[in-house]
């Protein structure tokens, strides 16, 4: 297609989008329509922009007589512009923190505020109230709302929240989320001093997922080097744990892991996928030519491995450009 034709095509698409959005906004503004019909119109409106439309949306969202889903939909529409309207941010934070609001409304407020947070300044000015509202939502009986709120708080490294999560894993308080999820949330604070807890979970895991996440959280803990080395070498150990261990050793012992990974990749009695994964691990860190014997191993694996994944890994190693 010629560039001018392409330009005409794109211009046409934009003009069509504008027309559709203008019609949708007119429907939204129409007092003759039901609230439900007006909100449905917003799906075609693109983004609400004018202050009067945002005011209208906020008014309907505040109306507790309206169905929760409808109000949640309008809260979503407020999200993109909310960062530039202090009163809307305040409104959203109040919905989030109000235990009398239905869970869908509060959860929509979490999403809207997360989106507003990407525009920085507005929410920064109301941060204390925002965090407090999130903490309130973290106590909700509604699992979705609780997990959403906890996720934001953990990523914000909110100290009281992280302490609660740690205590729940230690059995000192009620569990807020599953052990795997709790460990995921703790991973946002990698400097947290919970090595003893993590090693205990590795030894006595409540679930496979929790064990794997505990291993990931330990990945930068140099005192766990012997644990990871043992896991990598143990052919009876489950594959996922061994793969996490290979990655952890690359952080803790970058010189040692290349030797170890090379040794495992060369072991013809080893799990082919583990061998392949070791080749991938070495390939991301080491020029292919630095280990000529490994190149020979990879060549054989690429041709003869019964596992497709292992053959692909070997080929990836062979295709890795030298530095």
């Amino acid at each position: 297609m010629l560039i001018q034709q392409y330009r005409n095509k794109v211009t046409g698409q934009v003009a069509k989008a504008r027309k559709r959005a203008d019609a949708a906004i007119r429907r939204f503004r129409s007092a003759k329509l039901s609230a439900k019909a007006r909100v449905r119109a917003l799906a075609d409106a693109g983004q609400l922009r004018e202050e009067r439309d945002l005011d209208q949306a906020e008014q309907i969202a505040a109306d507790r007589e309206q169905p929760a889903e409808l109000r949640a939909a309008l809260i979503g529409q407020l999200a993109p512009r909310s960062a530039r309207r202090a009163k809307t941010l305040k409104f959203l934070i109040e919905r989030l923190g109000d235990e009398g609001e239905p869970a869908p409304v509060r959860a929509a407020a979490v999403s809207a505020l997360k989106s507003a947070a990407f525009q920085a300044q507005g929410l920064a000015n109301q941060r204390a109230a925002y965090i407090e509202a999130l903490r309130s939502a973290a106590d909700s009986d509604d699992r979705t709302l609780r997990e959403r709120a906890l996720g934001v708080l953990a990523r914000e490294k909110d100290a009281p929240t992280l302490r609660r999560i740690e205590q729940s894993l230690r059995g000192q308080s009620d569990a807020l989320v599953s052990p795997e999820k709790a460990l995921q949330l703790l991973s946002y604070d990698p400097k947290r001093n919970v090595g003893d807890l993590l090693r205990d979970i590795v030894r006595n895991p409540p679930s496979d997922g929790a064990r794997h996440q505990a291993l990931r959280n330990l990945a930068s803990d140099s005192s766990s080097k012997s644990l990871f080395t043992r896991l990598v070498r143990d052919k009876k150990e489950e594959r996922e744990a061994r793969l996490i261990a290979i990655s952890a050793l690359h952080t803790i012992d970058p010189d040692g892991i290349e030797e170890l990974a090379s040794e495992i990749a060369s072991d013809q009695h080893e799990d082919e996928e583990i061998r392949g994964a070791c080749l991938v691990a070495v390939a991301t860190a080491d020029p292919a030519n630095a280990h000529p014997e490994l190149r020979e191993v990879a060549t054989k694996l690429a041709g003869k491995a019964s596992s497709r994944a292992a053959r692909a890994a070997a080929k990836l190693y062979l295709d890795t450009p030298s530095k």
Partner: protein
Amino acid sequence: MAFRLSINGSTQPAGRYLGWAPSPCVLRITGADRLMTRRVRVSNVARARGGRLVFYATPDGPARTSLTLPVQLGSGTVRFWVGGRFGRPSRRSGDTSIVISRVGGKPALKVPCMVRVRKDANTLTAAERDRFLRALAAVNNQGNGVFQLFRDMHVTQAQLEAHGNTGFLPWHRAYLLDLERELQAVDPSVSLPYWRFDAVAPRLFHPAFVGTSNVAGTVEFTATNPLRFWVTDGVPGVIRRPEFDTSTEQAQSTDPPPTLAAISEADTLAIGAFAGSWYGDFASMEGNPHGTAHTSFGGMISSIGTAARDPLFFLLHANIDRLWAKWQWLYQRFDPTDVAAFTEGGRVGHNLADSMWPWNGDVSAPRPDTAPGGGLMQSPIVTAPGPAPTVQQMLDYQGRHDSADRLGFDYDDVPFDA
């Protein structure tokens, strides 16, 4: 008779990466036959499915599939420009070549090149995808690589440098460019793909690419995916919980219902169109689709302070940048002196003449008190923007007003038309 061709100022292979915007070429003819060669023909030969080239006698002249040019007497040089033919990018290095012939004679020189542009991630071949992932994993180096510096640039403490103001788009353009150049230092055939979040992208959200999420939000990769060993902040793995079905739906928050979708490309380009398409209006896309795309997930990518830990972040922002580039093309908003092309934001770092943190190394208030990463990475094909880019230098990325401002990247669906 010796023919030597320099592309982008270099006779080395490193210079042979092209986009849509014209790159300068200088052909030098030396030896005894120099005086016998009055004219040369410049043309293109390509592999099937390879990139296609067009040539320009002057950088603002019409594009041609071949040129016949006079040789300058005395110096034995020929100057021309070359670019990719819009719609026909390369798939790998060397799949297209510049051919130089004496007029009426056989080819005297054939120089393999690549038309390297940023593509829709969902359309990459397996080879293109794997080259990108290998380069990205090499830069990460399981947590020990320079990627950690990129992660450290996008943190809560520095959010005002890059968000909530008009410098949002220029800052992220520089950020992506810096990372892309690091990737190209590993493998020059690589460019940053973009995630078209207003469309379904099942090939992108796949264990062989950016991964799929289990119930807990832990991202799973194939055993051979280099991202298998992705590490940030000393912790392996990626936490990403989509709120939509990544195999059948576009980016949107549906959990809990109802739905808030990232607005379409057409709706994004239409922002502010009712009032003349000024940058100040367009920059509101930071809310939707940008914020909406981020928060159509839970996990790392859904918060400013952790978003850059997820490799998907860079593909998300490549699409944001592509939308800006497309808006610029549609409304011709490349000239920094055009008041519709950029609106100054007031705060330092958000005005045309301001240099941008962290590349400027400025740690005096109100800037953050650290500046990770040093200067912006240099490129073998262009000199712009230099190690400490300004906001202004991010606008004319194709060098339409001044070819020296070209930044060395293009998008597959945003053309260059002089």
